[in-house]
């Protein structure tokens, strides 16, 4: 393990490594700061550029993006009260009041330091967990992988707020799309309608580019105006060091936020927004002065920002170890791994340890470098959010589609990106969560293959899923997840009846 980490570090400190890490950080900061774009769009746009690269170099680039998006988003949250990405919403509560009180520099300094340290703590937790994860994945066979895929889909659908039913429908829709093309288990093709392009199935990169980049651009065109809803051009940044010092004076807040972030990040579907809000709530509860929150308490910036960056380390655990992405960003990242000839899952940890470590090291360094660059350019970065969408949209659409074509030189990919762009926009408009569709699209093949392999192992009997304790446990948890809202309703009704009776 140490050898892999050392060689990853050596690779990163080459001219090429530093260059791509830097590019990733700058792109991540920009896309993080611009509301509506975020890391998912950034990764989707960058995928085609990495096609000819070594996997390690590509991961350096993506590590840079993932490590910096959260801090980019905090800058617009603090200066403009507009979270760059949803997890930064918790930072607005105290970050923006600080900016209004003339303490924007301290808030950004605290966010930068908490982000970078949170990222490092998340990575440290990931490194600590990898040896254990390796042992655990060896216990997994096809029935467990099938059950895990179902659990991932259920958990992600449940995490879509009040859209659980539509989250499940989106998941089923994504699985349906995953069946298109050559059927590796049974031979022959399915659902292609005789269209030769579809024989290879829906290509993941054009589909993801469409669902995220193109759909967001269609949405921005519909909204019009500038990117940030509450634009303020008069951003002043001073006394950054006060914020940096505040983080070191409040280490328990940092450690609590990072721990919560890493833990929640590892649970598929829960994601950064929940992590940062729980970290914020925990800090308010632990505070002796809870009424100061929401009025510019610096701890209200430190807690969510540390959780926000630490969650990436946690989210990589199920993604790399089991091939189960915990978020849309990680689903796209799975697509990147496949594009570079790596199959996420148990073999990834066992056979490509070096590659895994380059990603981890890139992620750790990106968090630190992003904070340093971010501090230098924060004022200008915030102004990006005042960009008119009518300038941004045609540029992003053009670059995204040229990139999609460049991957395999097939015009069909461009058409798929457009079709998925329209589907993604309609899903946004009518409240069908895209994340479950994406994750199902990515997991579809794994789920079907594992299902058929399990049935073969079980001599044609479905009971195989219920006679192995890990798969049984995972399926029971899945059933519990699906029943959670109904159970919650039942308990609430009983409580209400009890109150009325009293």
């Amino acid at each position, binding site marked *: 393990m140490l050898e892999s980490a050392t060689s990853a570090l050596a690779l990163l400190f080459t001219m090429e490594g530093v260059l791509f890490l830097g590019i990733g950080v700058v792109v991540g900061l920009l896309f993080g700061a611009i509301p509506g774009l975020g890391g998912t769009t950034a990764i989707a746009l960058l995928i085609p*550029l990495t096609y*000819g690269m070594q996997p390690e170099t590509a991961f350096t680039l993506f590590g840079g993006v993932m490590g910096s998006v959260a801090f980019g988003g905090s800058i617009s949250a603090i200066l403009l009260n507009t979270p760059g990405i949803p997890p930064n919403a918790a930072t607005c509560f105290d970050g923006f009041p600080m900016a209004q009180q003339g303490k924007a520099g301290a808030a950004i300094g605290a966010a930068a330091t908490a982000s970078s340290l949170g990222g490092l703590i998340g990575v440290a937790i990931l490194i600590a967990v990898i040896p254990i994860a390796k042992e655990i994945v060896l216990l997994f066979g096809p029935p467990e992988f099938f059950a895990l895929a179902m659990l991932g889909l259920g958990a992600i659908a449940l995490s879509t707020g*009040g859209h*659980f*039913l*539509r989250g499940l*429908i989106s998941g*089923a*829709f994504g*699985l*349906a799309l995953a*069946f298109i093309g050559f*059927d590796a*288990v*049974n031979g*022959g093709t*399915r*659902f292609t309608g005789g269209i030769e392009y579809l024989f290879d199935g829906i290509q993941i990169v054009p589909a993801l580019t469409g669902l995220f980049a*193109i759909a967001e*651009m*269609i*949405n921005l*065109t*519909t909204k019009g105006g500038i990117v940030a809803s509450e634009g303020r051009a008069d951003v002043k940044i001073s006394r950054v060091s006060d914020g940096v010092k505040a983080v070191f004076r409040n280490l328990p807040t940092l450690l609590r936020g990072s721990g919560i972030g890493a833990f929640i990040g590892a649970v598929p579907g829960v994601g950064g927004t929940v992590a940062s809000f729980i970290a914020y709530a925990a800090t308010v509860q632990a505070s002796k002065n809870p009424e100061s929150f929401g009025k510019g308490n610096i701890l209200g910036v430190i807690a969510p920002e540390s959780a926000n960056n630490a969650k990436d380390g946690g989210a990589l655990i199920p993604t790399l170890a089991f091939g189960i992405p915990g978020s849309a960003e990680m689903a796209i990242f799975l697509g990147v791994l496949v594009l570079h000839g790596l199959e996420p899952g148990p073999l990834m940890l066992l056979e490509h340890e070096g590659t895994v470590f380059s990603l981890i090291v890139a992620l750790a360094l990106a968090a630190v470098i992003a904070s340093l660059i971010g501090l230098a350019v924060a004022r200008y970065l915030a102004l990006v959010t005042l960009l*008119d*969408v*009518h*300038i941004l*949209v*045609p*540029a992003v*659409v*053009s*670059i995204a*589609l*040229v*990139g999609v*074509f*460049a991957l395999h*030189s097939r*015009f069909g990919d*461009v*058409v798929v990106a*457009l079709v998925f762009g*329209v589907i993604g*926009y*309609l899903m*946004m*408009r*009518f*409240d*069908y969560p895209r994340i479950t569709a994406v994750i199902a699209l990515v997991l579809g093949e794994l789920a079907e293959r594992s*299902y*058929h392999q399990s049935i073969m192992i079980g001599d044609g009997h479905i009971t195989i899923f219920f006679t192995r304790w890990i798969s049984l446990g995972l399926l029971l948890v899945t059933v519990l997840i699906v029943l*959670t*809202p*109904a159970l*919650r*309703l039942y308990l*609430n009704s009983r409580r209400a009846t009890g109150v009325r009776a009293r």
Partner: protein
Amino acid sequence: MSATRSKALNLLPPMAMLAFSIGFLGWAYTYGERAQQMPVLVGWIMSVLCALDVVASSRTRAGNLVRALFAGTRVDRGAVKGTGKPIARSVVSILWPTAFISLVAVFGFLPVIPVYVFLFVVLQGRKSVRQGLAAATFTTALTFVLFKLALGYEVYQGLLFSG
């Protein structure tokens, strides 16, 4: 917007998804026994969920119950989010990339990008011709330098120029 029209608009997306799921299910049954197993399972699950969604989107007592069961709390959801947005604006927003790709299919990326960017900025964004020209030049130059010169990728030349 009248209440009847609002109700109809609420039902439109779940009905469309239900139609898709039934179509998918029917198609799945046309494959061999093993090849249809998972698609049929998914098709049935999707159809049932979509039917429930249709019920949930109807503002009836049954709809309220289904919504409550899946939300975990008693809810009184109004119109489906987004149905209040002008449809014409959404159609125009979708037509822009569609027109762009249609032109690219014939003429290729590099000649079409400046035209698309310029027209989008000037017509859709109502910006000045100068801003349109600047945005078009910047985007085309960036695409050319990034993909053609720096990465050496092939940039689609279109049916007309690809020979």
